[in-house]
């Protein structure tokens, strides 16, 4: 690639060529010259790059790795050393096999099972993968939230494309000892384009949740999170906690969350049925929305909120009979306007392969991901009735498959302090994030005594 070539006009080079490059190449090209460094860091370029049609949406899947049955006792199993499965404590909520993240090479989800890539390779062997809740991606970032059933829930941000990972400092407040787990939300403030995190720490304690914390992150600016103060909070509480008791008063359990257009939505189980709660990230307020009135409050579970076209939808599962794990049909309710549900259609599941759960729509409103009764991930096309096996599977028991529609982003979460991240360091940081620390062990064994 040498020679005396006519220089391309700069705007052409930037707007038509550079913007089509993958993140890894662009991170390397930051050293070409100072101008390119500043360009690649600029929010203008980052936004154009992210939104470029060539930045394809790819399917990221969390799934189980089933062992390859082999008679060879010397066979090398990839997770052998890293996965310690304690069968004594197995209670159906832990996977029997290690979980992994995989990413399909392109949008067609074609051919062979997904490929391990740079961006997710280093977290593949984390033994506690099932303890991470991944929320997002929002603008290429994931919010990771550990779920250890104890006081040490942790939050972090992760950009897989830039291999950046950042712990979120916890608000300085002692949680009650009866093991709250936090529920969180993650999205963008539509007015400022800042990332916002909503953190509801007391969801699982005896008292209904009445406190929330909201943190704000502006990429590349601050070194630490800014917590937003709510002027309505009682003076006796530390300023960063918000009272939200009127929102979660009668809530028992919180299910899936989904971000769309400036608000984060949760599906919540209450004493009187189901409800959707949203946090409006523009106005910084919570709101309650009743679920569609026919939604069966006693249904076994698996109802989820997903995105369809540009609206929030509730997928209501109807099972064959009360304790069945096989779906009879899925009702798709769409909320085009806040508070107003329409039953968009009902998908009858009896004619196809046995289905356990819907997982969400792909790039449109007619391709739906489903987990079959034998825990396989398939893509069902409502128009053609075709079912495509994607070659990945979950585990028995709870649903361990998660799907994410992922696009690469250059957004940096490192802040002003530049740290060097090589693969080993990142792997260590991730492991620390997931490690059950000593003090946790003590508490755990104290509880079991």
């Amino acid at each position, binding site marked *: *690639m040498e020679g005396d070539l006519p220089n391309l006009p700069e705007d052409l080079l930037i707007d038509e060529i550079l913007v089509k490059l993958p993140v890894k190449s662009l991170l390397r*090209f930051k050293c070409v010259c*100072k101008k390119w460094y500043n360009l690649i860091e600029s929010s203008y370029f980052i936004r154009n790059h992210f939104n470029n049609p060539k930045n394809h949406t790819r399917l990221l899947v969390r799934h189980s790795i089933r062992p390859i049955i082999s008679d060879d006792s010397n066979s090398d199993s990839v997770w052998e050393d890293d996965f310690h499965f304690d069968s004594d404590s197995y209670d159906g909520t832990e996977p029997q096999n290690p979980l992994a993240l995989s990413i399909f090479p392109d949008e067609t989800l074609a051919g062979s099972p997904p490929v391990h890539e740079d961006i997710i390779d280093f977290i593949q062997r984390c033994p506690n993968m099932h303890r991470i809740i991944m929320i997002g991606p929002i603008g290429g970032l994931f919010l990771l939230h550990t779920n250890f059933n104890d006081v040490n829930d942790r939050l972090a941000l992760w950009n897989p494309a830039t291999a950046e990972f950042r712990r979120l400092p916890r608000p300085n407040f002692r949680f009650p000892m009866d093991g709250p787990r936090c529920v969180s939300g993650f999205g963008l403030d539509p007015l400022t384009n800042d990332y916002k995190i909503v953190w509801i720490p007391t969801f699982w304690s005896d008292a209904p949740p009445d406190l929330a914390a909201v943190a704000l992150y502006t990429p590349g600016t601050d070194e630490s999170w800014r917590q937003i103060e709510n002027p309505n909070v009682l003076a006796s509480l530390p300023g960063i906690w918000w009272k939200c008791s009127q929102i979660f008063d009668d809530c028992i359990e919180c299910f899936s969350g989904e971000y769309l257009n400036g608000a984060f939505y949760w599906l919540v189980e209450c004493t009187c049925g189901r409800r959707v709660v949203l946090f409006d990230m523009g106005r910084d307020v919570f709101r309650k929305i009743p679920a569609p009135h026919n939604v069966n409050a006693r249904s076994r579970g698996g109802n989820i909120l997903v995105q369809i076209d540009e609206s929030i939808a509730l997928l209501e599962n109807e099972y064959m009979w009360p304790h069945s794990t096989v779906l009879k049909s899925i009702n798709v309710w769409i909320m085009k306007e806040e508070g107003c549900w329409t039953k968009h259609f009902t998908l009858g599941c009896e004619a196809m392969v046995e289905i356990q759960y819907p997982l969400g729509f792909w790039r449109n409103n007619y391709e739906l991901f489903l987990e079959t009764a034998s825990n396989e991930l398939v893509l069902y096309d409502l128009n053609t009735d075709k079912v495509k096996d994607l070659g990945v599977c979950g585990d028995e028991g709870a649903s361990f498959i998660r799907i994410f529609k992922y696009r690469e982003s250059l957004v940096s979460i490192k802040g002003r302090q530049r740290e060097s991240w090589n693969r080993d360091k990142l792997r260590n940081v991730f492991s620390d994030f997931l490690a059950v620390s000593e003090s946790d062990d003590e508490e755990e064994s104290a509880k079991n005594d």
Partner: protein
Amino acid sequence: MSTGKMIVLRSKENETFEVEEAVAVMSPTIKRMIEDDHSADTSIPLPKITSKILAKVIEYCKKHVETPESEELKSFDADFVKVDQQTLFDVIIAAHDLNIKSLVDLTCQTVADMLKGCTPEQISKTFNIENNFAPEEEEQVRRENPWAFE
């Protein structure tokens, strides 16, 4: 709805190229020039585009007017960009000037694909860019994302 009207395009070397109107108006720039010019006899001057490059652009537009979206068209596009780098860059500039978006996209994607695996040094050479980082500064930048250099 072809009127059968032929448009004459004139290259930098003053060579003329006759093309159907439907092909010529793939370029909004040329389209505007046709609409602005009420005398039917004048040719459209394109002084910045050489005959060689103009011929290439016309070849692209003709094929895209004649052929619907298909494997055949994809195959044509793939072969179309198999040219030397100088020609490719010249076509990019011409397509940009003529505002033929699909051609700009195609050729720029080709360049992006070529650049994907390059080192910063190769980029500097290709685009004649001087590296104005001091050695320790550059080292610092490399350390920000060491894995990207593997």
